[in-house]
């Protein structure tokens, strides 16, 4: 029952987000600030994680495909498919649910606790539009982060493969180019857009509607991470079934 109530409340929040828009001059500043907080400040961690996980994926693939039965290019091919189809869009989004999601929930939750949201409301400002809408727009740049994750993941894989002595550079590059299906990129970016929307709205919902004090802000952040991750996993399944199934 509580679950259905929250789904209803979430839909109402999305509707309210589009009502009574904040002045464009102010909104522009908010979008730029949220772009910095959510996208630009995530570049470091995403680059680091993608590069090393790409390397680990390649080493594990190389170790489990040894022997003359497997072609040399297989490691490059499998690395590309794993990173483009699943690692970059989905696993990075779950990492972002922890980083950006917690940030959004705790910042909006703190505003709730310290009556800053009430202050916006009594001034006649649509606080949901003011707080949530710029985050949704800022995270439209999220596929750009995913592209970087894809590139660095494959680069990390290539370096680990070549310098670890598992395969040659030419075989790895041949693998990357073998049987490339451009629609897989479209599929990955469609997923990224959906996950970006989830990353902006689900944590905002948990922050905006939280009740209590500082301790509850922490609890709301944890809850927000769980529900954002669950939503990403469920939508990952649905989109994959719809587009590739």
């Amino acid at each position, binding site marked *: 029952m509580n679950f259905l109530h929250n789904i209803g409340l979430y839909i109402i929040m999305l509707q309210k987000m589009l009502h009574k828009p904040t*002045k464009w001059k102010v909104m522009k500043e908010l979008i730029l600030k949220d772009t910095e907080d959510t996208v630009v400040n995530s570049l470091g961690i995403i680059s680091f994680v993608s590069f090393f996980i790409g390397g680990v994926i390649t080493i594990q693939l190389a170790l489990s495909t040894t022997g003359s039965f497997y072609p040399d290019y297989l490691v490059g091919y499998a690395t590309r498919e794993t990173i483009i189809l699943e690692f970059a869009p989905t696993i990075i989004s779950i990492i972002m649910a922890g980083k950006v999601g917690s940030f959004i929930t705790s910042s909006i939750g703190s505003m709730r606790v*310290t*009556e*800053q949201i*009430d202050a916006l*409301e*009594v*001034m*006649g400002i649509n606080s949901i539009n003011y707080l949530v809408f710029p985050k949704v727009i800022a995270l439209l740049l999220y596929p750009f982060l995913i592209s970087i994750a894809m590139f660095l993941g494959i680069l990390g894989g290539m370096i680990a493969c070549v310098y670890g002595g598992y395969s040659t550079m030419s075989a790895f590059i041949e693998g990357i180019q073998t049987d490339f299906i451009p629609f897989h990129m479209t599929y990955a970016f469609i997923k990224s857009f959906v996950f970006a929307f989830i990353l902006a709205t689900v944590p905002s919902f948990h922050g905006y509607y939280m009740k209590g004090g500082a301790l509850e802000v922490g609890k709301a952040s944890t809850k927000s991470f769980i529900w954002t991750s669950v939503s990403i996993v469920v939508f990952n399944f649905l989109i994959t079934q719809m587009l590739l199934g």
Partner: protein
Amino acid sequence: MISIKNLKKSFNNKPVLKGISCEFEKGKTSLIIGQTGSGKTVFLKCLLGLHKHDEGKIIFDDKDVQSMNENQKMELKSSIGTVFQGSALFDSMNIEENVMFPLKMFNDLPFDEMLDRVNLVLKRVELENSNKKMPSEASGGMQKRVAIARAIVNNPNYLFCDEPNSGLDPKTAIVIDNLIKEITEERNITTIINSHDMNSVMEIGEKIIFLKNGVLEWEGSKKNIFKTENQAVTDFVYSSNLYKKVKQMYLKK
């Protein structure tokens, strides 16, 4: 002027406000007092539109809030200044940006003009030269002054203050009280203060409303409060020995 007629509000079928009727005059500082749980905050939040009341009328200068459309409500809200208990300053903005915020949201003034108005109100609350400080760098008293500056920068017709001197030392609390009273008189606005503080009652209470269990138990001025026979009011106001002695001295006079 603000008129309240038979205001009722319940939460989960539990009545919190049980039909309150009163009036708040223009140019005067009115105080709402009462014990914790008496319904003061809910009453103030109903006036501010943060809680929707169940029954009754809230009339701002002959305009009933319930019969207003969205645009009229927006217009009304932009004419209200609010000082919250915890100041509610925006953490991510410095003092200047906090005070400028209502101007940015509701006006299309050039930046220099907005800055002039900000500096004027900051001077009025004696905070010149603090423009670039962040709220976290300001003391409790300074934060309250910034909140007052933000509340009056847009020249409001109504000023609502929720326990404006809670958490402040007695000297700073009196400074804040007097500042609110002076601003109310200078700008001829309707000011309503929600307070626990007996010093505020004695210092600036031109009109006092005492709430008990969601009912308006007593109303009068700071002079009447010494003479009242109402047991609930005397129990609340004269709960400390100091005020018992003050009352005795006043009555002897």
